[in-house]
């Protein structure tokens, strides 16, 4: 049977991706689609790269050698994800050097959760367990992305993220079964991270108004993702005897979770570069990009 041709006509292309069709780097893509892909995928790559900084700060302070090795491996994985994802962006026409320049100048964005400080080892556990859990929900939905090269690398990324969640859960379990002070560190970290976690999947715009759903870059809406997170993880948090800092949080009889409206102004402010750690982390990244220039020069020579 003849292969399905990717339609050239704009409307036919849209119908094709909305019908579950996938496209390759070598297909002719509408400009608007390409622009949206670059924006979305670049932010994802930025987030992987910036996402290691909150954890990196704890490598030297990890409580045991085993934890130090595991955390180092996780950081290595996440940087590897950034490399894979920047490759996808490069094939879409934006060089990696340009992506990094736009990241450190604040022109492009990265996820809200990586703009916050990592105060204690409890934060490291909450990040590895719950931030990664929230991220894997978004990433699993990308396995069906209309842009096939991105969907393919997401297989490897989701596979590695599944270890990270387990590593995070193991850290948390060790602490909640430890001393009362250790338990308290986890509870305090959860209190700090809950608001950013609830903001993570974005404001609940109907998916039909979301351009990323329109082009089937994402395969689920923001609120669907958040509900999936609550459904999967709130019971796991509760069973450890931890308290979720939201008095309104409950599972409705219809299975839909109710919660206090997240602070969308905070989300907007943080992702546009006004988070508590934004400047410090971008300055760090910028310093390393300069410091490592000689490596790129040697390779290019």
């Amino acid at each position, binding site marked *: *049977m003849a*292969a399905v041709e990717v339609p050239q006509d704009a409307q036919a292309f849209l119908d094709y991706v909305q019908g579950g069709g996938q496209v390759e780097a*070598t297909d002719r893509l509408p400009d608007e689609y390409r622009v949206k892909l670059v924006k979305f995928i670049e932010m994802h790559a930025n987030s992987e790269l910036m996402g290691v900084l909150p954890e990196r700060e704890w490598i030297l302070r990890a409580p045991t050698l085993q934890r130090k090795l595991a955390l180092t491996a996780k950081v290595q994985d996440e940087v*590897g994800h950034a*490399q894979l994802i920047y490759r996808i962006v490069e*094939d879409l026409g934006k060089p*990696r050097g340009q992506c990094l320049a736009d990241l450190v100048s604040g022109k492009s964005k990265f996820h809200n959760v990586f703009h916050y400080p990592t105060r204690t080892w409890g934060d490291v556990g909450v990040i590895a367990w719950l931030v990664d859990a929230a991220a894997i929900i978004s990433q699993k939905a990308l396995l069906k992305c209309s842009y096939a*090269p991105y969907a393919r690398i997401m297989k*490897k990324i989701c596979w590695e993220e599944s270890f990270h969640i387990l590593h995070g859960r193991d850290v948390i379990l060790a602490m909640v079964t430890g001393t009362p002070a250790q338990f308290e560190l986890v509870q305090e970290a959860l209190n700090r991270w809950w608001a950013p976690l609830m903001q993570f999947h974005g404001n609940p715009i109907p998916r039909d108004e979301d351009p990323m759903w329109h082009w089937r870059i994402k395969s689920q809406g923001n609120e669907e993702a958040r509900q999936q997170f609550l459904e999967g993880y709130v019971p796991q948090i509760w069973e450890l005897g931890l308290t979720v800092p939201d008095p309104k949080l409950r599972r409705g009889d219809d299975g839909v979770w109710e919660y206090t409206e997240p602070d969308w102004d905070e989300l907007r402010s943080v992702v546009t570069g006004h988070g508590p750690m934004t400047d410090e982390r971008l300055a760090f990244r910028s310093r390393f990009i300069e410091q490592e220039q000689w490596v790129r020069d040697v*390779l290019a020579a």
Partner: protein
Amino acid sequence: MSEPVWEVFRQERRGRPFEHAGSVVAPDADFAEAWAREQYGRRGESAALWIVPRDAIRDVESWADEFDLKYRRVDGYSIKARLKEARERAAARAR
């Protein structure tokens, strides 16, 4: 980008097909191998890798069927009507 792109195919277990996994950018084949090992083999998840310069790949996407080669495929044979007629004739002969 001046550096060449290398496509990486990985085989999950011996005997399985190689599947496209992703790509790496590297100045030469040795570096490409180093990056690909790091990205696609670090946890023993691959039995083998193929690392291919992107330029060496010949992309074939159009499948013209000018000569109507349906006789090579199952959808080239529509036997329903003929089978019905044959059965009717056989039934008529038996009467």
